[in-house]
């Protein structure tokens, strides 16, 4: 009998542990369509869950002093199952209460920290609190069914719970979320909790056990029939496809209202931002799109034969189309693209005419720095356009060691072009990255603010200097001169970096997260001076 009871309680602990990790890992993805999945959001989610678990442990300790800890345990697990099953359906209302629709990316960012914290607290505090309550109740139920030392029982309960959590940690990002989606993931977590409640209800009478189980099952099943509201698209835009990848939520939207059909690839909260752009024609996209600046090096260099290109952060292939569409007549593109998210590459093939052949090679599912380390060059141009979680430059792709690797992949005179999300050339993020590249390349760096955008593009060359807007050699011919190159001669739209004054960002010390926050604060401060 004791062994049977111990086994059921151990199983209940493992199931509860697995559910806890499923809820926690899927939590960021649940609110990512609204707040993104940056470090700030992750720390808010983990913080709230830990706080709620701690509170649950205290509550469980209090309930464990009662006459029937098994009943309290069953009730807590059933409540957790109900709360868990309904999370996907409550998330929209909760998130919208703290993040209004229609905001641009830079306007929404000030709400991300507090908004994601509030939404996480409202959504996950009840579930995590109930899950935390379970652990001390499991230990107490175990002790009463099979007396032993507190340490031995506590260790076994924790061990079973942690093993269950281990399964949840690996299954959630590798299978549950990408293959089954968020609603099914939470439904599975709820089902596991109902099973845990069943395992734990061994000493209750038939009616209470039946009532608790029934409530939990009915509530969980009812959730399967409710539709989850997704973030809407802007007026005039139609969603073509939406997918969950191991890294993010990805969707393709199309604008059919303008003269030209346009598609955008958006991730997570989307807002007014985009990761890739498609037009039916190749070549320049137009004002406000930083990809057009990537075409400048070839226009300045006037190559013959082949232009060897490497794009790190390929997305759905916009850089390929823009650069290939503007190469001088007779010049062929020989391109390598690296994209860490295989779902993005797949959507690129389906909706963005991303071609893969001998001249257009794509490495998907691998980190950019890993590819660069294999020294795949020499290249005439390397484009760095890698962003994680919509707004974050990956730290390991912004250091002097990484830029030295990029330098070595370039042919003599080769170009580095880097996209930086920033409000101007005096942005702290732009300055830090430009000075880091300066040290790595031992040469000058040009920063160009892309008019009508929130982007700055940095240019550097191996063994040469980029042209200056105030010097001969700036012009590249049409279609660049009359629009992009003309506007960037404005003093506010460019900056020259020579003689770095600060220590570069390196693998050991890289405050890129702080710099990105400072960048957004600077943008907001600028606007507030206008009011």
């Amino acid at each position: 009998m004791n062994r049977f009871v111990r086994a059921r309680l151990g199983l209940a602990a493992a199931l509860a542990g697995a559910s806890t990790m499923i809820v926690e890992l899927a939590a960021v993805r649940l609110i990512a369509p609204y707040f993104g999945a940056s470090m700030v959001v992750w720390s808010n989610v983990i913080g709230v869950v830990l706080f709620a678990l701690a509170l649950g442990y205290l509550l469980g300790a209090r309930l464990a002093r009662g006459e029937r800890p098994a009943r309290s345990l069953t009730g807590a697990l059933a409540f957790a199952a109900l709360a868990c099953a309904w999370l996907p359906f409550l998330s929209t209302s909760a998130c919208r209460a703290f993040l209004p629709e229609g905001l641009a990316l830079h306007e929404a960012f000030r709400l991300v920290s507090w908004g994601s914290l509030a939404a996480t607290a409202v959504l996950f505090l009840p579930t995590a609190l109930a899950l935390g309550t379970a652990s001390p109740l499991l230990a107490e139920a175990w002790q009463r069914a099979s007396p032993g030392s507190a340490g031995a029982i506590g260790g076994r309960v924790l061990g079973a719970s942690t093993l269950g959590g281990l399964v949840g940690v690996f299954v959630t990002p590798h299978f549950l979320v990408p293959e089954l989606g968020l609603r099914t993931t939470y439904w599975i977590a709820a089902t596991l909790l109902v099973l845990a409640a069943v395992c734990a209800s061994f000493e209750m009478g038939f009616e209470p056990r039946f009532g608790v189980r029934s409530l939990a099952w009915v509530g969980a099943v009812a959730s399967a029939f409710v539709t989850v509201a997704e973030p809407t698209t802007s007026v005039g835009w139609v969603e073509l496809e939406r997918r969950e990848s191991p890294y993010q939520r990805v969707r393709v939207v199309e604008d059919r209202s303008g003269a030209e059909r346009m598609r955008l690839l958006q991730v997570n909260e989307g807002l007014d931002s985009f990761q890739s752009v498609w037009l039916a024609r190749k070549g320049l996209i137009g004002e406000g799109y930083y990809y057009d600046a990537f075409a400048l090096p070839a226009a300045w260099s006037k190559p013959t034969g082949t232009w060897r290109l490497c794009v790190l952060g390929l997305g759905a292939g916009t850089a390929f189309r823009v650069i290939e569409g503007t190469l001088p007549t007779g010049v062929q593109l020989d391109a390598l693209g690296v994209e860490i998210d295989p779902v993005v590459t797949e959507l690129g093939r389906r909706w963005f005419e991303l071609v893969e052949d001998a001249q257009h090679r794509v490495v998907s599912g691998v980190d950019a720095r890993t590819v660069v380390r294999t020294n795949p060059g020499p290249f005439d141009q390397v484009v760095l356009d890698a962003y994680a979680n919509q707004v974050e430059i990956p730290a390991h792709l912004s250091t002097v060691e990484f830029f030295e690797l990029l330098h070595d992949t370039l042919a003599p005179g080769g170009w580095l072009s880097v996209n930086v999300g920033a409000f101007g050339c005096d942005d702290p993020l732009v300055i830090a990255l430009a000075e880091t590249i300066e040290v790595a390349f031992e040469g000058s760096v040009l920063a160009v603010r892309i008019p009508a955008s929130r982007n700055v593009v940095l240019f550097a060359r191996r063994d040469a200097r980029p042209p200056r807007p105030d010097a001969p050699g700036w012009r590249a011919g049409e279609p660049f001169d009359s629009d992009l190159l003309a506007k960037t001669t404005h003093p506010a739209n460019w900056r020259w970096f020579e003689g770095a004054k600060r220590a570069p960002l390196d693998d050991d010390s890289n405050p890129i997260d702080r710099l990105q926050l400072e960048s957004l604060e600077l943008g907001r401060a600028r606007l507030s001076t206008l009011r």
Partner: protein
Amino acid sequence: MRASRRCVDAALVCVVSATSSFAQSFVDVQAAAEAGDFSRARDTATRIVDLGERARSLVWIDYGARDYASAVAEARTGLAATPSDPWLAERAVAAALALRDGRAATRGLDDFERVIARATPDTAELADWRATASDYRARARELTVLEDAADVALNRSRWTVIVLLVAASVSGWLCLRGGEQRP
């Protein structure tokens, strides 16, 4: 926005033809910009003596280069010198809207509508200005509503977190109270 563009062109023509010295300076500014040298255009503009005319040239350059923040600032400087200039008033609003700053645009619109109200009646041009102001007012209102909603959401977030934190802390303290009991 079509009304806005007609207003911009019409006003520029009036301004340029009204003042011969400004006309020459502005021609130089325009030539430099069309030659693809906004830096030289700006240098030329800063040498114009008349404050209002200088402001008009600088706003034209800054807006053309999409430096909207500078365009707003220069327009306001120019309006301080020439408060009855509808073109400067309109550009200040247009640049603020391009920055998605509803409050700055609303401030600019108050000035713009005051200028229109005091303007010498010229039916076609006035009608264009009023239509532009109406378009801008609707857009500024949308942006201001969003900004207000964002402020409300931020306050709501902070208070939600504070209330939940206090409630949770009190609950935790209550759980800790009381002695150990064994069944």
